[in-house]
C-alpha cells in the first residue's frame, strides 16, 4: 500500500509528471485533435471519463489476478477491459445524448488505442495505489491530459494567423511547441513533494 497523500498524487499526475509532456503518453490524439479548441476540450473530457472507469476496473482486476495467481494475464485483461469500457461508454452516450455522440465522432473509439489509458492502469498497479488513490490518480492524469491538449490547441489556433515557412507547417511545428511547453512544465518539478 502506498502512503502518498491524495493531494500529492493529484499534483504529481497533472502537473509535475504530466502524462503528455513528461511521460509522452497519448501523443497520437495530442497531435491529431489539437487543431481546434472545441474538439480538444471534448476529447479531454472523454479521455478523463474513460480513465476514471478503466482505472477503477483495473484496480478490481489486479486484485482478482493476484487472488488467482495469474499475473501474466494482466496486460491482456487490461486491454480487453479498456476496449469494452470504451464500447460501453460509446453506446451509453449514443443513447443518452446523440448530439454529444456526433460531436465526438471518430475520437471516441480511438480512445481504445490511447496509450495514456493503458499506461495509467499499469502505473497505478506498479505504484500499488489503493482504491481512492487510484481514483485521484486517474482524475489528475485526466486533468493533466486535458490541460496539455487545451494549451497546445490555443497556441495552434493563434499560429493559424502567423507566417510560417511551408516545410515547418504541420507535425514538426506542433512538436516544437510541445517541446517548449514541456520545458515550461519542468518548472513544476518539486511541487507537492
Amino acid at each position, binding site marked *: 500500500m502506498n502512503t502518498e497523500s491524495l493531494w500529492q498524487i493529484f499534483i504529481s499526475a497533472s502537473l509535475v509528471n504530466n502524462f503528455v*509532456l*513528461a*511521460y*509522452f*503518453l*497519448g*501523443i*497520437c490524439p495530442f*497531435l491529431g485533435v489539437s487543431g481546434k479548441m472545441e474538439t480538444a476540450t471534448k476529447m479531454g473530457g472523454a479521455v478523463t471519463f474513460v480513465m476514471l472507469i478503466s482505472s477503477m476496473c483495473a484496480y478490481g482486476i489486479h486484485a482478482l489476478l493476484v487472488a488467482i495467481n495469474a499475473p*501474466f494475464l494482466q*496486460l*491482456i485483461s487490461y*486491454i*480487453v477491459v479498456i*476496449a469494452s469500457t470504451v464500447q460501453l461508454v460509446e453506446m451509453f452516450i449514443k443513447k443518452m445524448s446523440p448530439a454529444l455522440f456526433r460531436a465526438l465522432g471518430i475520437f471516441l473509439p480511438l480512445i*481504445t*488505442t*490511447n*496509450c495514456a489509458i*493503458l*499506461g495509467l492502469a*499499469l*502505473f497505478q498497479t*506498479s505504484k500499488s495505489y489503493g482504491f481512492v488513490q487510484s481514483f485521484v490518480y486517474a482524475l489528475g492524469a485526466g486533468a493533466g491530459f486535458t490541460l496539455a491538449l487545451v494549451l497546445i490547441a490555443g497556441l495552434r489556433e493563434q499560429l493559424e494567423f502567423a507566417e510560417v515557412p*511551408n*516545410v*515547418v507547417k*504541420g*507535425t*514538426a*511545428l506542433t*512538436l*516544437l511547441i*510541445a*517541446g*517548449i511547453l*514541456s*520545458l515550461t512544465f*519542468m518548472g513544476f518539478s518539486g511541487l507537492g513533494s
Partner: protein
Amino acid sequence: MSNPVQHKTNTGFFSSLKASPSTDEFIKGLWRDNPVFVQVLGMCPVLAVSNTAENALAMGLATAFVLLMSNVLVSSLRNFIPKQVRIASYILIIATFVTITDYAIQAISVELHKSLGAFISLIVVNCLILSRAEAFASKNTIGKSVLDALGMGAGFVFALFCLGAVRELLGNGTLFGFPFLPGGFQAWIVMILPAGGFFTLALWLLIFNIAKERRSKT
C-alpha cells in the same frame, strides 16, 4: 485526379530497386512510407525511450518482433476472423506477443527491462502495429505480410536509432555508453529531458520535409 507531387516522390534513390514487387514491399517501410518520419505513427515509445541509443535500439527490436509475429498470425487467420470482431481479435493477438516479449526481455536483461519500464507493455497500443494488421496483413498473403512487417519494423528501428543516437550524443557526449565527443564538449542536458525528445523529432521531421520538397522540385 492524378497528383504530380505524389508521383514524383516515388522516384529517387531507391527507384532502381523497385524492379521486383517483393523488394518494394520491404523498401516502402524503410524509406518512402517510414512509419515514424513519414506516417507519424507510434509516437509515444519513439519519444519516451529514445534518450539513449541502446534503449532506442532495444525498443525498436522489441516492437519489430511483435509487429512481425502479429502480422504473420493475423495474415494466416485472415479468413477465419469474423469482420465484426476483427479489431478486438487483433488487439488480443498483439497483447499475447507483447506479454511474451515482456517476459523474454526480463529474462535476458533485468537492467534493460527496468530502463524501458512500462513502455514494453505499451507496445500493445502502438498504432503502427494495429494499423499494419488492419491495413495490410488482413488483406494479403503470409509471405507479403512478412516482408511488409520486416520493412516497417526496420524503418521503425532505423527511426528510433536516429533519434536515440542524436539525443545521447548531444545530451551525454556518448554513443552506446562510449565517450564520443572531445573532452571540452559541454553536454546539452535538455536533450535527455522530455523536451529534447520533442525537439529532436521535430528536427528529423523537418529534414524529411526538406528532402521531400527538394525531390518534388527536381
